[in-house]
């Protein structure tokens, strides 16, 4: 039981480290590129901005959820 918990925690720590690197890349690449475009959209086309905002947050949710699930499954699989 304790061995299993330790393995899970190790896999989670590795997942968190890999995920942090991915997120930092994401901050600097995607958000930096999107920032100006979203700012202009928000000030000039509010309705379009509302649609883009909801699509972005929903899309990010699905993508990141899939990435973390796959990452965790992969690391757990390697641990076994």
């Amino acid at each position, binding site marked *: 039981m304790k061995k299993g918990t330790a393995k899970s925690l190790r896999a989670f720590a590795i997942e968190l480290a890999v995920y942090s690197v991915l997120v930092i890349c994401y901050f600097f690449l995607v958000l930096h590129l999107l920032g100006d475009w979203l700012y202009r959209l928000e000030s000039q086309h509010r309705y379009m901005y*509302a649609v883009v905002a909801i699509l972005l*947050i929903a899309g990010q949710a699905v993508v990141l959820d899939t990435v973390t699930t796959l990452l965790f499954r992969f690391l757990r699989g390697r641990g076994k």
Partner: protein
Amino acid sequence: MFFPISNAHINPIYLAVVGFIIGILGGFFGVGGSFIAGPALRLMGVDWNYAVGTDLAHIVGKSIVAARQHRTLGNVDLKLGLLMAIGTIGGAEVGAQLIQALKRAGNVNTVVSWVAIVVYFGIAVFMLWESGTTLQSDRRRSPQKIKGAESKKDRSAFGPVTQMIQRIKIWPMIALPTSGIREISLWTILLVAFVGGLFSGFLGGGAGYIRMPSMVYVLGIPTHLAVGTDLFEIVISASYGTITHAIKGNVDILIALVMHTGAVVGAQIGVVATQYFAGPKIRLSFVPLPLIGAAIVVYTLMTGHKL
């Protein structure tokens, strides 16, 4: 990092950590976590209107992740969630109108603050009594291991009242097989959702701390299913709120996207944690949440600072 839409400088690590904490709470309790996100954004100098709208956008993303995870565990009743979303949106609109009427009367802050304190405190005391009584009576019973779908059916000291509510026959009556409810009036579901939405529009945030307990105690939904279904319902109602706030210029989607990166991991931890706790224990650990909400309102009343 500079966020041009809300004109604010915020450390992205701070946002991700706040998102992570809210993610855990959301995944475990089925709440949006606006009582933490709003003040956390205000502390960083984000204007109040942006804090409210951005928080809603972040709630959408976090709830999608948590609801997807809960769905894989069989904790989401889609039919109930869709019906509740209709009532919640209606209630939120009426709540917002009520706020406008109070604004015109000039006493909006006092009324809303006192209503919030009474409601939050009332929920905390009631849930403390109910979950404590249920856990005590469970201890007296012989411990039986129940597996499968039956394990999600949890007992409640408020059960007899819930059964009386379920027996109210106002057409149309509907069945909720996923939640294990043979028959319940559609109006009871809509009323519960409407009241939750009313508080959401009136007090701000998603009002999950009212809706989740209402689903358990009034509708008789098992706690695990109430948490998962509430999250699914939040996805719909918070999406609606995000669009209306974005049109009014109250959403900085860049902040929401950064906060959400932390919330994804937090929500998954919260969802997995629900598997290790029985319904009454989840309800008992829920008690501090409305008390934190009440403490924030008392602080704003005493100091005059809106967090």
